[in-house]
């Protein structure tokens, strides 16, 4: 079974080597260097990842879509989305992959609320709760954590999930597609490490509002 981890990275030189080294035992690493101006790509390659380089920064959604296509070309049986900032735990890969390998579900979604969360600030908890309500309202999926970057897809599911949102709205887009195509999904408890680094790099809480705005506009102009 070929497991490919797609890691979108934008200026993550400080942590990328550690992330790739941690993941290597569990999956083939494909780092999509999204136009970084630091040495992210070079360091990832040296750590043993395959690096695909966007010449200019196009956003995390765009990077994940590029990674998806490449992973399918590689012949991946399971594709895992993994954040480059070190907030995920590579040991969780096995737990994420298992239900798919067994054929129980098509998609597994990491949930920090089912799992153990290390140092989650209050405001972020609030924004994530709002995100849950929003998702329930629009896509009808009942989830405990909607913007978790750790996900795994069977090959068949990955072939269906073509991302069109270049920015951060892809997280909600994935859920929309899961609902629309009636894919079997399951939430899996995962550990998130809220380090000072990942908090600084992650989305600010205000950013969440912008994502919601974008998705609402999308509901009105549905032309992709």
């Amino acid at each position, binding site marked *: 079974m070929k497991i490919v981890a797609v890691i979108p990275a934008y200026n993550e030189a400080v942590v990328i080597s550690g992330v790739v080294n941690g993941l*290597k035992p569990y999956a*083939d*690493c494909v780092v*999509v260097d999204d*136009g970084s101006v630091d040495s992210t790509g070079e360091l990832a390659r040296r750590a*043993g990842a*395959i690096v*695909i*380089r*966007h*010449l*200019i920064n*196009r*956003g995390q959604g*765009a990077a994940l*879509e*590029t990674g998806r*296509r*490449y992973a399918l*070309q*590689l012949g991946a049986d399971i594709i895992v989305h993994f954040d480059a900032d070190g907030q995920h735990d590579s040991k969780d890969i096995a737990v994420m992959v298992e239900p798919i390998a067994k054929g129980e579900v098509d998609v597994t979604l990491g949930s920090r609320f089912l799992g153990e969360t290390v140092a989650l600030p209050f405001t972020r908890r609030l924004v994530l709760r709002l995100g849950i309500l929003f998702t329930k309202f629009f896509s009808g999926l009942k989830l405990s954590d909607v913007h978790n970057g750790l996900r795994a897809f069977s090959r068949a599911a990955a072939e269906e999930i073509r991302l*069109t949102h*270049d920015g951060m709205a892809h997280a909600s887009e994935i859920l929309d597609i899961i609902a629309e195509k009636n894919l079997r999904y399951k939430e899996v408890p995962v550990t998130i490490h809220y380090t000072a680094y990942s908090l600084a790099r992650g989305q600010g809480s205000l950013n969440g509002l912008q994502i919601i705005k974008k998705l609402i506009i999308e509901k009105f102009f549905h032309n*992709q």
Partner: protein
Amino acid sequence: MFAIFKAWRAYTAGGLDRRKLLWWSSFWLVAAVVILSPQTATLLANILGVGRGVDLALYISVVVLFYVLFTMSRKVDRLEKSLTDLVRELALGQAKKGEKQDGGSAPR
């Protein structure tokens, strides 16, 4: 007057097509008339049920501006999309080339 003259010059030089020439000429002509005798605008405004000519100009410009804004944002969206597609194709093409140089060896 000067602007119309310039538009004609551009037309004869081949920089403007006929549609654009007509468009610009009439635009400047209307502008000239309205500036030289504002009561024509008021007359037109009264026909349309607006109190003053200035108000009419304001209303029209707001509508036009919003329309332009709308088409522009759609255009930017399309551009962004094609830019992403382009960047992606380049990235994937480059990755493929890299594989060949490695002698097609399986990565990892």
